[in-house]
C-alpha cells in the first residue's frame, strides 16, 4: 500500500448562480482588475488515502465526492492524486 495525497476541488456547477463569485468579481473590477472575469468560488479539500495504485486512490476519492464531499445537484468536482 502506498500513501497518496488527494486534492479535491468542488465548484458550483456551470450555469448555476454563484453569488459569492459575482460579489468577488465585482470587488476585483472595483480594484482595477478589469480583465478578470468568470469568478467561481468553491472548496478545496485535501486528504490522504492509502491505496495500491494512484488509480485506486482516485476511485476512492471519487466515491467520497459522490457520497459526501460534493452535492450532486449543485456541484462538480475535480480529483488530483499525487504520491504523498
Amino acid at each position, binding site marked *: 500500500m502506498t500513501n497518496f495525497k488527494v486534492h479535491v476541488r468542488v465548484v458550483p456547477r456551470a450555469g448555476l*448562480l454563484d453569488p459569492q463569485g459575482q*460579489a468577488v468579481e465585482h470587488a476585483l473590477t472595483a480594484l482595477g482588475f478589469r480583465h478578470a472575469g468568470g469568478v467561481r468560488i468553491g472548496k478545496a479539500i485535501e486528504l490522504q488515502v492509502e491505496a495500491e495504485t494512484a488509480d485506486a486512490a482516485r476511485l476512492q476519492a471519487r466515491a467520497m465526492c459522490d457520497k459526501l464531499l460534493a*452535492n450532486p*445537484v*449543485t456541484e462538480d468536482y475535480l480529483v488530483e492524486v499525487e504520491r504523498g
Partner: protein
Amino acid sequence: MKRVAVVRFPGSNCDDDSLQSARRAGAEAYYVWHRETDLQRADAVILPGGFSYGDYLRSGAIARFSPVMASVQRFAQAGGPVLGICNGFQILCEAGMLPGALMRNSRLSFVSRPVALRVEQTDTAFTNLYSRGDLLRMPVAHGEGRYAADAETLRRLEGEGRIVVRYVGLDGGPLAETINGSLDEIAGIASPDGNVVGLMPHPDRAADTALGNTDGLKFFTSVLDWAPARAGAGAG
C-alpha cells in the same frame, strides 16, 4: 395520543420550538438524540432547525449520515410523516428524501425576518388543515435557503402538485424583491405521497398565542389525524 419524535443533532437550536409546538398541537412529543436509532414508536418525526455540525461542508451534509437518519428514512419509506424545518429541510434534501438543494441566498446575507407564504398544496401530512391559497405569516432565519433544482425536477414538482408553500408579498401579491432567490419562490416541497415535507420558514416559531402568531400551528395539528390518501402511501 399521537407520538412525535423531535430529532436533536449537535447544533440543532429550534428543537425546543418544535417540541413545544407539537405539544401545543396535542401530541406527546419527545426528543431523540441523533446517535440513537430507535424512534420509540413515533407516529411522526420532526427534523428541527438549527446549524447541525456547524453547517460544515454544506448545510445538512454531515447530519444526513447520523445514525438516526437510516431509521428516519425507513420510517418515511413506510409512509411515516416526516417534517423538516429549515436545517431539517436541508438535511432531507442532502439525504435525497426530497429533491433539489438549498444554496447560499442570492444576496449572500443571512435573512431573518417575517415572510408571507401562500399554501399551494394541502394534500400532505402537514398542511391538510389549511386551505389552498391561505396566506400565512411566519419567520425565516437562514443563510442557505435558495431552493435549486434542475428543470426536469421542477416540472415534476409542479406536475405532481408537490410545491407546498411559496413566498409571496405580505399582502398576498407578488414579492417586491426575492427572499433568498429560490427557484419560482419555492419555500417548501413534499414527497410524492405527501408524507415528507420540508420548508425553510419556521412554523415552529409561529405556533404560540403568547408570540402573537399561530399561523404555523396547523403544520403540527395536521399530522395528528393524517391518513395517507394517495395510492402507494401508508404501507406501514
